[in-house]
């Protein structure tokens, strides 16, 4: 399944990059980056490989306890959270705009907090 998603992305994203070819009349995702220019790799590389970078780091961190590496999901959120909501999800926000355009379902946010600098409150007794 993941392979299929990756192959699909590899197919779609280069096309997005050169989507000027598509000419007018083709809707494109609006991608707003709140803090531009601080990315850990060039845009082209991120577009193609962000899923592999994140997945690799996810396993390294979760299973081996490696912390402080650049490809961290919370690190992404810090820069990419939209200015209006502080989140990377929601219409026109960084992750969701492109993923809904490419019809690739994201389940990161079932567990991960999509808002930058969010402070959770506790209520248990």
């Amino acid at each position, binding site marked *: 399944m993941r392979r299929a998603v990756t192959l699909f992305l590899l197919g779609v994203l280069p096309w997005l990059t050169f989507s000027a070819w598509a000419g007018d009349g083709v809707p494109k995702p609006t991608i707003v980056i709140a803090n531009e220019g601080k990315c850990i790799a060039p845009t082209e590389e991120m577009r193609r490989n962000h899923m592999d970078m994140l997945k690799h780091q*996810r*396993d*390294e961190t*979760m*299973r*081996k*306890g*490696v*912390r*402080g*590496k650049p490809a961290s999901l*919370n690190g992404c*959120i810090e820069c990419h959270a939209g200015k209006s909501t502080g989140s990377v999800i929601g219409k026109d926000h960084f992750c969701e705009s492109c993923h809904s355009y490419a019809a690739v379902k994201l389940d990161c946010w*079932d*567990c*991960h*907090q999509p*808002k*930058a*600098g*969010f*402070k*959770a*409150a*506790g*209520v*248990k*007794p």
Partner: protein
Amino acid sequence: MSNNDRRGFLAASAGLGLVAIAPGVHLMQVAQARPAGEPASKLQRWGMLVDTTKCASGCTACVSACATENGINEQVADPRQAAQWIRKIDIKDPKNGRQHSLPMMCQHCAEPPCVDVCPTGASMKRADGIVLVDRHICIGCRYCMMACPYKARSFVHQPLTQQNPEVPRGLGCVESCTLCVHRVDKGQKPACVEACPEGAMLFGDLEDPNSDIARRIAQTATTQVRADLKLNTGVRYQGI
């Protein structure tokens, strides 16, 4: 599993060599953030010692601190579905009336049954002894909940949106005390240990003979709950 054991054995033997060459190495590792990029080490085993003679009945400071730290803030429809990261238990010996109050949470077993039964490898023990659920591959079957003798695990039954960024948790996965792994990796103590007003909880490295916890365990009578199961728990109790 057998693969993990073999890897563990290799790491342990390498570790022993290191200790013999540099006996001071342990001392430097305690209560320090692990440098960026370094994995958790087999040379450490994080554990906790709870002094039940100090733990006050009715006090839930550790439970609240855990909820705040880990973003456990959802209202559940049925109390039986509530998260069970840590809870207070009052016990009484019916023969002599002796009473104790104590916090119960994942005991971070060295031989964790939750890891044995997990069909996907989601339930896992990190090199430094912290037992975790890798939610990325947890299928929510809940075998581990049934296998845990301490009822230390619970299942998230509803969508969550108020997670702490450092503590991802969500619908369809099993969860339990992480020993505040995100704090421990920064060189901090678990939230419950820090919050206990009686100083009844001691956190540290069981593998370091110079740590407070290892010294206390070497000097005083401590108990592993259900020691008969031979799970070699990382959480120990004193006074029960």
